[in-house]
């Protein structure tokens, strides 16, 4: 087990623990408030879709790919690789627009026409084919389960590190943490809290918690920016000092990387302009949010709100981390950058400890909100797509309520049980499941919304090929990494054969032990998207067209009732 407690590690004492407890209390309170606003007679729609009543703020600040990663992995990347990370995240400039304008209206309309409350259910009704819904449901459950298990670990780790005497407080989604009683205590508190308030308030509890942490994160970033930039002598000075400490790569592309890899060659930069945009509108968690939008006016306002919010978060966060590189001496754990800079710049101001605690607790709130959403989506899949379809189609309201809550407890139990001995390569599975959602669902979402000729088989082919190609390139990368590790300087036998086919490591992207195979130097997501599109269109064209009545239901104007004579 790697040693994670550094000699000079900063510990924020009781401040963070206090702030985490405030977050937990606020989340439980929000869950209770959410329960009061649920309509009693429409349990499924209320519990899983908030009665389609999301307002502009909740929709804007919860509907795209914001997560704990914004405050966890992202700052570490900036601290490590420098200004090039601005280009890496650059496509966020259009994410608010594409997130709502590409399929938002149509998804909301189709889900209303079909009276469906989950993404698989919507696909099933849109194509009148249970197999499409089942395929979507299984893929979603697989993707989200890996991510959810990893987020359980991240939440437990933050809880553990917030306990005084646990060493450095590090914001990381994949920190190699010592598994001890403090970790298990954190895991239990985190799991019970999240599943508890989600069971109480359902979808609304999830989005309100998400909104709460998003606002807290914005405040935290603004406070840090105002304190860190003057401390560094301004941005220009910070950049010059950081470049002197590292090298020109810290200011120019492809980025600073002491190991000699190219962090962001142009091929990967192109990939990032696809990944964030497409993951922003077509992942199941994003689609379920727009299905819950009140109306189109709310969507329009959300575009503006999210555009402004992203301006307040991402570029300022980059500026803070560049300042941190200048202010603080190098340290081995880039994941410590936000805790360290927060403690450094608030140490001489009144209530600095409390302020630090609130800033550092925001990512914990983000993780709770993410897990809450995953628990809901997985549970809704189990209830809608398995229990109500195959086990008890004529279930009463009380039976549905009971099974829903039982499903959530089961999902929470799996999240906790899987972390008793956390899988070694969990984070790799998280990366895969995050982008795999985009690879598998972009084409199906576009086909369902805009293409009359699309068929059930075409959509299934799009889902499976997108996921298959994406996962295949990751698996190829693992095989290549294994061959490089086994083969050493002069590979022989199987390792030599594999490297003969795949070639040497291209030396691009993150220096991760689990990295994909970058075919033609671009990310697997692009190949997944391309394969999904080709399969979806191709299979639709060679299969029997959908029935005219089904197409008409979704593509033709509803017939007006005859006016009274």
């Amino acid at each position, binding site marked *: 087990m790697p040693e994670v407690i550094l000699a000079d590690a900063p510990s924020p004492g009781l401040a963070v623990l206090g702030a985490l407890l405030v977050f937990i209390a606020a989340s439980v309170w929000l869950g209770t408030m959410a329960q009061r606003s649920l309509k009693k007679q429409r349990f499924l729609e209320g519990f899983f879709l908030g009665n389609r009543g999301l307002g502009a703020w909740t929709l804007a600040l919860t509907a795209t790919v914001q997560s704990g990663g914004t405050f966890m992995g992202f700052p570490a990347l900036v601290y490590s690789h420098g200004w090039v990370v601005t280009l890496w995240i650059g496509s966020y400039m259009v994410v608010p627009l594409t997130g709502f*304008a590409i399929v938002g209206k149509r998804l909301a309309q189709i889900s209303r026409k079909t009276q469906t409350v989950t993404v698989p259910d919507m696909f099933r009704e849109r194509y009148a084919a249970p197999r499409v819904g089942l395929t979507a449901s299984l893929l979603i459950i697989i993707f989200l389960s890996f991510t959810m298990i990893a987020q359980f670990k991240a939440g437990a780790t933050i809880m553990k590190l917030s306990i005084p005497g646990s060493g450095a407080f590090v914001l990381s989604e994949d920190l190699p943490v010592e598994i001890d009683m403090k970790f298990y205590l954190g895991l239990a508190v985190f799991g019970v809290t999240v599943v508890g308030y989600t069971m109480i308030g359902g979808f609304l509890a999830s989005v309100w918690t998400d909104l709460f942490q998003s606002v807290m994160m914005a405040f935290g970033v603004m406070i840090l920016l105002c304190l860190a930039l003057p401390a560094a002598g301004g941005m220009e000075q910070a950049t010059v000092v950081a470049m002197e400490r590292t090298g020109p790569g810290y200011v120019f592309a492809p980025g600073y990387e002491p190991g000699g890899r190219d962090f962001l060659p142009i091929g990967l930069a192109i990939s990032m302009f696809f990944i964030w945009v497409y993951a922003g509108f077509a992942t199941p968690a994003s689609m379920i949010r727009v299905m819950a939008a009140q109306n189109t006016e709310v969507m329009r306002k959300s575009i503006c709100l999210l555009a402004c919010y992203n301006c307040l978060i991402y570029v300022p966060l980059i500026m803070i981390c560049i300042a941190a590189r200048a202010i603080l001496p190098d340290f081995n754990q880039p994941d410590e950058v936000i805790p360290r800079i927060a403690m450094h710049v608030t140490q001489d101001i009144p209530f600095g400890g409390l302020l630090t605690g609130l800033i550092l607790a925001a990512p914990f709130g983000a993780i709770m909100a993410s897990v809450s959403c995953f628990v809901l989506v997985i549970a809704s899949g189990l209830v809608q797509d398995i229990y109500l379809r195959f086990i008890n189609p004529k279930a009463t309201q009380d039976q549905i309520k009971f099974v829903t809550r039982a499903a959530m407890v089961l999902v929470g139990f799996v999240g906790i049980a899987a972390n008793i001995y956390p899988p070694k390569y969990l984070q790799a599975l998280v990366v895969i499941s995050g982008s795999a959602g985009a690879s598998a669902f972009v084409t199906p979402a576009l086909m369902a919304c805009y293409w009359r000729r699309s068929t059930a088989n075409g959509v299934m082919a799009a889902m499976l090929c997108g996921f298959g190609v994406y996962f295949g390139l990751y698996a190829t990368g693992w095989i290549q990494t294994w061959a490089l590790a086994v083969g050493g300087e002069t590979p022989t036998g199987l390792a030599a054969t594999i490297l003969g086919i795949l070639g040497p490591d291209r030396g691009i992207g993150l220096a991760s032990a689990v990295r994909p195979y970058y075919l033609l130097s671009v990310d697997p997501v692009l190949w997944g998207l391309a394969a999904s599109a080709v399969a979806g269109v191709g299979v639709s064209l060679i299969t029997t067209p959908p029935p005219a009545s089904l197409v008409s239901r979704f593509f033709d104007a509803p017939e007006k009732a005859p006016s009274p004579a």
Partner: protein
Amino acid sequence: MPQEDPVLTSSRREMLVAFGIWLTATVYSLSYCGLYGYNRDPASLKFVFGFPDWIFWGVVFPWGLCTVASGIFAFGFMRDEDLGDPHPEESDG
């Protein structure tokens, strides 16, 4: 010949414009950063409002433009439509 659903018509138009804005931003940012951010002589570094020049003109400036474009799109182009009754059986009953 039945008439096309008006929500579909406006959604498709908005989708194409959104894709157009994304494509324009992508081509501009990647072209500019590709030309001025990669393989650069460190001595040529200049700053614009504290940002390295290639970051400002390649990402920060278009980010600002896209934020404005998003506002114009939302309040000047995107149409409000009736998405349908969210609770039809309540209306019936």
